[in-house]
Structures are given as C-alpha cells and as structure tokens.
C-alpha cells in the first residue's frame, strides 16, 4: 500500500478489462505477458497490479469473454494461456466504441479549443 507508483496512473476496473481484451486481440497470451504488453504499449505509464490483473482475468473467463488453456513453456513450466472468445470480440468492439465516445467527450471538455495533449 506504499506509494511506489506515483508517476503511474491507476487503472479503473472497466478500463482494465478493455485493456486486457485489446491485448488479446492479436493472439493468446499468458498473464505475465499481458501485464508486460500493457506496460510497454502504454509507454511505461500503465502499470497493472497483479492483485488486479489475475482477479480480472479470472472474472473475464467466468464471464466467458476469454477462454484459457494450459501449455508447457520452453523451460518446461505449466503456463496458462488466455485467448479471446467470440463473445469477447463482440464485447471488445462495443466497449471500444463506448470508450472512444467517452474519450472524445472528456477530451472536448478538457480542451474546448483545440485537439492535442499535454500529458
């Protein structure tokens, strides 16, 4: 609970779902690589806490938006791979357009005059 990630942005639960689904868009991945992908693709801004990631993965799996399978990695370790389901793809599309609308709206409020970012 100490303030170690002050320069990083905390991710809300709904947003995290969206990020996970988006990350799985290009193929099956395991938990660690999902968190790495999000960190790298956000330019090190978004750090996903494992205490949020794994509950989210298990919840999405229960909601049948993603499915999982076990494989064995190169160094002989059991690895759980997650992939998008058809329902997950639909959900992602819907959530994406929602997000874009929201993002545009928020952006419009924050920057009434121009399009751009200072963040």
């Amino acid at each position: 609970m100490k303030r170690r990630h002050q320069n990083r942005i905390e991710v809300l639960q709904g947003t995290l779902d969206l990020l996970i689904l988006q990350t799985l868009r290009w193929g099956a991945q395991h938990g660690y690589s999902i968190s790495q992908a999000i960190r790298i693709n956000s330019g090190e801004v978004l750090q996903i806490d494992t205490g949020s990631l794994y509950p989210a993965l298990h919840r999405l799996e229960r909601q049948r938006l993603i499915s999982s399978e076990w494989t064995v990695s190169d160094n002989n370790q059991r690895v759980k791979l997650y992939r998008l389901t058809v329902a997950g793809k639909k959900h992602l599309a819907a959530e994406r357009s929602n997000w874009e609308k929201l993002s545009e709206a928020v952006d419009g409020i924050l920057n009434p005059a121009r399009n751009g970012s200072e963040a």
Partner: protein
Amino acid sequence: MRILRSWWRRREDDLEAEIQSHLAMAMRDRMERGETEDQAARAVRREFGNVGLVKEVTRDMWGWVSLDRLIQDVRFSLRIMLKNPGFTVVAVVTLALGIGANTAIFGLLDKVLIRSLPVDQPQQIVSFAEDAAGTPAVVSYPVYTELRDRNEMLSGLVGFFQQPFSLSNGTQSDHVIGQIVTGNYFDVLGVRPALGRFFLPEEDRTPGTHPVVVIGHKLWRQRFGADPAVIGKSVILNEHSYIIVGVTPAEFTGTTRGTVNDVYLPMMMQAQTGPRRDRVLDNRNFGWLSLIGRLKPNISRTQAQAALASLVDNETQSPGRHEPGSIFLIDGSRGHMDRVNDLSMPLLLLMGVAGFVLLIACANIANLLLARASARRREIAVRLAVGAGRFRIIRQLLTESTILSALAAITGVLVAFWFTRLLLGFQQQTNRVPRTLDGSLDHRALLFTLGLSLLTGILFGLAPAIHAAKPDLVSALKEDTPRSGSSFRRFTLRHFLVVTQASLSLVLLIGAGLCVKSLLALQAVDPGLEPSKVLTASFDLSLNGYDEQRGRQFISELTERARSLPGVEAASFATIVAFSDSFWISGATPEGYQPEPDETLAFDFNAVSPGYFRTVGSQIFSGREFTALDTRESPRVVIVNEATARGYWPGQEAVGKRFVRGKGQSAHFFEIVGVVRDSKEKGLTKDAGPAICLPLLQQYVPELTLHLRTGADSQTLIGAIRREVQILDSGLPVYNLQTLEVQKDGSLYNQRLAATLLTLFGLLALLLAAMGIYGVLSYSVTERTREMGIRLALGAQPRDVLNLIVRQGMVLVLIGLAIGVVAALELTRFIGTLLFGVSATDPFIFASIPLLLLTVSLLACWIPARRATRVDPLVALRYE
C-alpha cells in the same frame, strides 16, 4: 465430496502454477537484462506483491454461487475457529444447551399436544364431548349404534373403552392397557396393520363368538420380541383366551392421547373382559363408550353438531344419568386429550422459556462475534479494498456462524436426549391406566433442531456480519486503534445486547425463584399421613376372574404373609391410593340432614381393611379404627374425616351418628365409629373435602392396593412382596410397587417440571448474561488501553480506573434489571396457576433475585476492570 475436493485442489494448483509461471517469466526477463538471480528474485517478489492476497482476491472471482466458494468459506471458517478454540467452545456449548433444551421440549410438546393422530385425513376426525370445554362424552352401546346408523353427517363413528387387562401366556402375567373397540375402529380411522389384519365384520356381530385380539406395536416388540409368527398365537386376557390376528403400526398407540394401548378387543367380546359384565351391551342407560367420528367430506363440525344434537334429543326420551343431554363436537384430529390437557400450560410455558434462553445465547454469541469482527477489521478492510464484494464478506461471516450453529445443533441433539430423560423422569407412573408421555426424539424434532440452528446461525451472525462489512476503510487500513467515540454505533448495539440479556435472565430467574419457593411450600405441606413410610402394591382381582369369595381369601392370606415379612410394621388394603388420580365419589345422606333443593351430597369414598389408618400414619381423632370384628354379620360402620364431621355435625361428637345410603327397601344405615384427621391425599394444593371410609370386610372391591408400613429399605421389600404374590397366584400381575412418597412426588409433576427446568434455564441465562457483560467490558478495556494509560500517567488512582470501568458495566446491568423487574411483574402472573403458597409478585423473590444478578454482574465487571488498573502507562502510550 471427494470429487468436489479434488476438483477444488486442482483449481488451487492451477492458480499456484499460473502465479509461479508469472514469477518465473518475470525473473527470466530481469536476468536477461543482466540482473543477478538474487536481485531479480527480490525485485520480482516486490513487484508482484503479496502472493497470498493476490490468490485470495483472485479466488473471490470464481463466483459466489459455486460450491468451491462454499468449501473455501467453510475451510476458512474452520481455520478461524480453530485459531480461537476458547471462543468456539463457549459459543458451541452455550448454543448447544439452548438448542438441546428447545429440541427436547419441542419433542415432548409435539408428541403430546401438537401432532395429529397417525390416521387418514386426521382433520376430518371429531371427538364427542359433553361440554364446550371438551369433557369426553360417554354413551351406552345401544345409543352408539343408533347414532352410528342414523346420522347423515359422519362417514363413520367408532366407540371405545379403555381399561387395564391382565395378560398372561400361562407362565408370565402382566398388567397391560387395552381398548374395547367397535369393529369399525381401524377402518374408520384408516389405520393399516403392521402385521396380520384388523377385525372382520363378522367378528363384531355376535357376542362372545370371536375371541380375537389386535396387539399394539410396543407389546409386540417387548413381550413377543417382534416375532412375525405371533399371528395366530393365543394369549390369555383376563382369564379368557384370544387369538392374535394383527399388530398395530408403531406410531399408532390408540385414540386417547398420553396413553399407550397394548391390546384392542372387539366390542362383542366385552362380556368376557370381566365379571358382572354380561348385560352391559344391552343396557341403554349405562354410558361407558367414548366416541370419535369422521366427518363426511364438505361437512363442517358445526353442521354435524347441530344434526347430531337433534338426533341425541330424540334418542334420549328417558332421562338417564349417563345420557348426554347435548353433544359437542370438538376437534378430534389429535384424539381424546383429557389425559394430557393439564400439561399444555406448563409445556407451552417451558417452550417459551427455552426460546428465551436461546435468544440470550444468540445475543451472547452475536456480542462475541461483534468483538471478534472488530478484531478482524483490518483483514476485512483489505479484502473490501481489493474489490471483494460486501456480500462476499457477509457470506463468509455467515458461513462461520452457520458452522458454529451446526456444530451446536449436533451437540444440542445429545443435550436433548439427556434433557428428554430429565423431562420424563418426574413422570407419574401410578394409575390403573398410566399416563405414558412419549418424548423420544424423531424426525420432526430433529427437523425442528435443524431449522432452529439455521435460524440462530443467521440471527446471531447477520448483525455482526453486516456491521463488519462496512468498516471505515481508511482508518482500518491505517491500523488505527479506534477511539471509543468513533465506534459509538457498534457500542450501542453491544450495549443493547447486554441490557437485553440482563433483563431476560432476571425474568427467568424470578420465574424460577417463584416456582422453587412454591415447590418447597408444597413439599412442606403436612399431608396428614406419612408417605415416606408406606410401600404400595396394586392388584386388579377382577381382571383375573376372582369372585368375591376368592378375593377375600386372597386379601386375608396376603395380609397375613406381608405382616410376617421382616421390617413390616403394619399391612392393610385400601381401594383408593393416596395422591393417585383414581377416585370414588358417591352419595350418602347424614341421618336427619335436609339437603337444599339443588344440593348434591357427594363424598370421597374409600374401602379399607383393618389397621389401614395406622399403616399410612393417619391419626384417629376420636372413636376407633376398623377391626376384624367389623364383618358382614356385624352392624354397618364407617369412619369419616374431620371435614365431614365438622360439616354435618358442627360442635358435636360425630362418633355414633349415622349415614343413610340407598332408598326405600335397599336403604341402609351406617354408624360412624371413628373420625380421622383430614389429609391432603386428593392433592397437596387442595383442602380436604368430606370423605367417608367403608370397611373392606363389609364392602368388597376387587381393585385393591396393599399398603405396608415399613422403616426398612423398600427395594428389598418390593422383591419380597412379588415373591409372596407369586406363591399365592403366579398368574396375578402386581403393579404400582413404590412408596407413597414417590406417588406424592408424582402428583407434583407439573410443579416439579416447572421448578426444575426454570431453575436450570435461569442459571444458564445468568451464566450467559455474566459472560456477556464480561465480554463487552473486557473488549472495551482492550480498546481503551491507551486511554487508561493516559489517565494513570496523569495521576488517576487505580481505584478511579476500576470505578470507571465497573460503572460502565453496571449502568447497563441496572437498566437491564429495571426493565426485567417490570417485565417480570407482568409475566409472572402467567405462572400464577402453578404457584402454591407464594404470590406471583412475592417481595422476597423480587428483592433477592435482582440482588443475586447484581452480585454476579459486579463480579463480571470487576475482573476486566482489574485488568484496566494494571495497565502500565509506559507500555500503553508506546502502543501503536
């Protein structure tokens, strides 16, 4: 369960593997970037955070309706409970006592008063009474047949008569209970035989031609070893041989609640059941049959009653004493209730009280759980913070309380078995037709326990759970010790529970105190005879076919033999036993007495052999006892009690005065030869009524009880008496072998039941309340350690701190006691009818019981308060 568990384990293993693979990959990444294994391992651990917590919150996502969640909750709860064995044991034991007591009393209440007869459509059964209060109506056999054949409201009407029988197989004889029933008895009730068959139509058509008998399940088990080959065998009942044709099902014991019938004989065998009974079936004016009928579908009780009443009026043109003038149909779904009606008040009272105690126990555990929940505030806050639903937390806490109550239910069933024995232990077993209360626990009682334990689990678990699930997250996570002010809400709930406990236990203890005082008063009553010195043994000579001559011979021979037994000071016979509920009420007119127009001259009669009053220890005031010289040939004599003497010859010597019995030709005079002291043998709570005693030598009665006056051990004498009877007639059953003291105690069954159980419950409630107060205060002392430290550091004396804490507890207790006293004043009048020699607002009890409670609670406050005074200010201030 095993499959479930292995499935659960696999899921756990998967989660572990998933996390391990995450850690391994993170390590590899870091080591590829050039970190040492050591550095990488530490960094990865730090980055990942608390593995246990991640697992915990991940598991929370597995869904809360699935079984694995439940198993996890159960395991977690068991872990928590094992960590606090003291709490667990206290909670389980107190709850078990509460649940056990409730189960036992419910079991008895249900079997005695609530459940329907095990017959077809019991709601259609109606019972015939002579008044609205339900006094059973009796009619003669001819009236029965007319009612049966001419009514249009009932699909069936049965008559029955209950009496004892002497059952013998040639070598062994027993006193058993049976019913003489009309042939349609089992058909109308819709009872099916467990074995064999019930009566055929031809077996109830012609008198004396079909000696068949149906035996009860209990007799079949106990006497015949549940042998299926019993059908077709013959048994001897009252000197007459019968063929066994069927066995009743185990759950059916007859239509008179509180009695168990061993044999059922068809009506047409009535003349063979005893001497002088050959004219009974034809006698229109001799009412003896109890009636139970089955309503036709869609006929209401009131409709049927109206129709039957007009029928009865037509039938009874000639007014006979036993003809019912009117008929009341009362609910007969539970059978005839007259033997158990007096139990309804005490049993309902005890049920209410047992419920009370359970409530106190629940309040106590709720309180303990509240304290515990506060101790787990941080853990719960963490779980809420990472997104575990509030409902999840409540569910977890409820699982815990449900497990507690389930454990308590299991223990409670054991308690219930013990308790049932206690409940039935005071039972009176001393009548010609004994009352048998069945309190054995069956599936209904166990279902009740199950429901009760679930209910209590939710009752004491829900409030603390809801409470715990909404802590102040910020302060809980900051590991802040709450100040007493910030937890004010929690405090009020806990305080409320303590106040409730104090008041409830006060009410119970006052009730217990009143009942105990009343029982002591009853036991101190001088009964007018010496029950502890008298042993009784009863015989029913008529059942074994004794005529008067043989009976008289038996009486004189047994008296002779009994008198020669070592330790026997005196021996004599009487027909009515003191403190039993058998009675003989008859008429007699004092010579020259002019009764008022509506005055009935009725006396309690008894017939005794010479020396009876000396045997039982009754004092003859004036005149003499009966002697061997008062025979058939000598003048008719009687002994009366003081009440009779005072009532009819006030201020005069009654000895020498005379009674008249009978009219015209058959009128006889009876001269009073003695006046005996009044006794309380008709009930310790009643004043003696007028009584008349006849000499057995002049008035033969076949139902007799031998009375022995002895200082010796009654157990050895019981064996000796059995042997003597065996020598005289091996086929004659003896019953009621016990002292009059036991009989006297038996007559106080209701009072003893109430006093014993209320005391037990009251003490339990007191213990629970003391524990409750102690728990609240010690929790509060722990929470205020720092405050106490500051007070002591600033110069407060230990005495001040002690006072502060004790006052905090005692204020609650005093509020509770005040409420309790008011409630008790209102509630004790419900037990007024059970009380004797003590008012329902007895000042001694109402003063001493609160004092007792005050003392106990003071002790319960003092122990934690002492702890507060021992707080080391330095340690307390460094705390945090």
